[in-house]
């Protein structure tokens, strides 16, 4: 068995760091982990995706279609872009942040009757794939923690709320402290804690979360 997480977002949101922290936590827990990371052509603002696979049975760096136990989307449109990787009925952790690509904004300027693709639309479509959806305002949480760049650690917290994640949250926290820039450890750990709490509240009806003290 393997626990497979499909992580996606927009270039600049710190997916590589998120992946690294999870990988290090696996190492600390004596678990095998393999990833397939796709950064895209642009350094920022492009689509970024990571296949994160935990467990002895994970061979390929890529998760098969419909194979991911959890989908983590640091941007809501991106959740939909990769939805086929999530198991039907799998767990979707989605940032409430929408970053409208320049091509979409350009379309609105060209045709004033056009409207942006909304968060509500993205989430309602994801809910046709799975009912187990948590929408997390990670940017606000990150800001509340003192570091607007900590959206990624908010989601590490969200993931750690899941009982199925084969990692002790303490190990994830240790890993975070090792990979984030010096001087931001406390902010990131705070973002982690809030993220963990928010996910367990958002998903409490599904019985998928750990009991938090």
């Amino acid at each position, binding site marked *: 068995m393997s626990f497979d997480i499909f992580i996606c977002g*927009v270039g*600049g949101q710190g997916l590589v760091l998120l*992946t*690294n922290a999870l*990988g*290090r936590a*696996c*190492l600390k827990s004596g678990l*095998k*982990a*393999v*990833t*397939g*990371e*796709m*950064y*895209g*052509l*642009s*350094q*920022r*603002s*492009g*689509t970024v995706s990571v296949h994160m696979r935990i467990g002895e*049975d*994970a*061979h*390929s*760096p*890529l*998760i*098969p*279609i*419909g194979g991911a136990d959890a989908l983590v989307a640091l941007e809501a*449109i991106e959740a*939909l*872009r990769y*939805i*086929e990787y999530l198991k039907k009925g799998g767990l979707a952790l989605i940032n409430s942040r929408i*970053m*409208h*690509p*320049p*091509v*979409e*904004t*350009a*379309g609105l*300027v060209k045709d*004033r009757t056009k409207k*942006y*693709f909304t968060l509500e639309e*993205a989430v309602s*479509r*994801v809910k046709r*794939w799975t009912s187990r959806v948590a929408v997390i305002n990670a*940017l606000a949480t990150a800001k509340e923690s003192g570091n*607007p760049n900590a959206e990624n650690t908010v989601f590490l917290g969200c993931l750690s709320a899941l009982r199925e994640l084969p990692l002790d949250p303490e190990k994830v926290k240790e890993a975070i402290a*090792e*990979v984030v820039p010096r001087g931001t450890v406390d902010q990131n750990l705070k973002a982690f804690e809030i993220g963990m709490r928010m996910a367990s509240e958002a998903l409490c009806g599904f019985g998928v979360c750990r009991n938090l003290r």
Partner: protein
Amino acid sequence: MVLSDVVSPNKGKAFMLCNEAIARGAIEADVKVVAFYPGAPTSEILDTFSEALGSFDYQMQIATNEKVALEICAGASFAGFRSLTAMKSVGMNVASDTLFVLGYTGVRGGMVIVMADDPHAHSSQSEQDGRFFAPNSYIPMLEPATAQEAKDMVKEAFSISERHRVPVIVRTVTRVNHQSGVVELEEIRRSGFSRARWRDLKEEYLTLGEVARRKKLRMLERRASLEGEFEKSAFNHVLGGDAGAGTGIVTSSVAYLHVLEALKNLGISGKVPVLKLGTTYPVPRRLVAGFLKGLGGAVVVEELSPYLENEVAIIAKDENPGLRIFGKRSGHFSEAWELNPDLVAKGLASALGVPYEDKSGIVEEARALKEGMPERYPTFCPGCPHRGTFAALSQALRALSASGKGYYFANDIGCYSMWVFPPISNADSSLCMGASVGIANGLSNVVEERVVAVVGDSTFYHAALPAILNAIHNRNRFTLLVLDNSVTAMTGQQPNLSTEFTAGWREGKRVPIEDICRAAGAEFVEVIDAYQVKENVPVIRRALEHDGLAIVVSRRECALYGDRRKRRRGEKITPFYVDKSACRRPYACIRDVYCPAHEIDGDGQPRISPELCDGCSVCSRVCAFGSIRRAETEGERR
């Protein structure tokens, strides 16, 4: 990257990107000289060596191009030092002139060339299969599947290189380079560095005519002895299944991992024999023949071209003529684009005659959910100087078109390539490093329109310079924009000849582009600041009208590089905002700039996201109403 994992002298384990594991392996193998030109998906190898440079005594150069990097390594190796370079396989096209000769001359110190293919052209201009360089140059090749194996192979490649006195290619693909995993670290025990004496080592590294003919025979002998060695290599192994069972699988690289995944998902793990090849040139023919013996069929699973499939077919012709071969040529796998566990499961199921649950229903259902969802094309970062340059260039080109003259636009390889994507989609051609200038040399003499070529700073030095000198000498008439953002931006902002730094961020001598052009005799050379959109339009217009070669160097450092420097200096980034009372909604800030930080608010007015804005000012410069302003209060800053 966590540097302490790479530089730790101790045994242990680390979670690492394959590219970091490659660097760690070479450091464990006491590599003494490394040289690179960056290229996805290998750039993190360079970055890792650059970061770790302070901890070890290896020499490192970030070279002008892949050919120079390869030659730096060859030079060191002639003098007995272990050397390593890494490049994408299209970089090998540039370096291959030297590679082919190294097959003849051989080397002394272990020399390893990491060469990465990019199936699916994720970040390349083609899906080139670089494996064919190996048989073509008689240079041995290893192919890892995982980060651990890449590290092991790099270390072993140094030994093979020294035993056989030949460079060794370690060939990867994107899904290997950009794969992280748990890697075993071995102790780092480095010997000190001291210069060698050539007179003690002296031997001939030359080849020509008679010498080449003699060395060709030696090369063939070497191939035979390498093949003999590879027959026993631990990098090749057979897994599972009954010997002599119906159908077996031959595979290599990341395709091997997809095969294991697919067999698991088909519920036949361990039931089908798998030959995993790690030494793919020369192919160990006796080993393959032994595997094929008695089989009714063989499925060959590999990325890109049917390279192994051809080898299997040739071997089977003598050893097992009745063998059915399933692969690319039989249509079980496509020769286009990259493999994944589902494509491999489908092909295997069909070849092996086992049931396969088709995923096309799920994919179709997902596609329906995505209806109307916006695309997210690769684009310039907020603050990118190219946005300012292209805003001015667009205006100048519009004026040229309006005058009925028209233009041909030759794009090139770098971040500015992304001008070909919507919403801008402007380019008539974009081929490979520096080709825009070569193409302009040809086109400008045969079409009526003005030819405009664009290159970046790194591309200028890498491959454009010979074509520029050609234009000066032959008095060719076209316009060349050199977008000088100080670093090789697209691969992760590595320093280059336009940077005052070099490997390890040590001081380097800047080689100013305009000085080279003027010294070579170019008559029209102007330097502009990429952010000064209004001021730049007339300069570019003059360049478009100039009766000769007109070179405009648009300078401003890469925003990401600049931001890092600002942070280091303790400077803050001050975002801009739209003063809604002044905005008359002409949307020039959006139409001319296309910045990810810009959005349309609910009230129809533009809005700048303070989290994304880099404070570059370009949008404020295209606004005719002065309604875009720099945030002034501390609270508005970040």
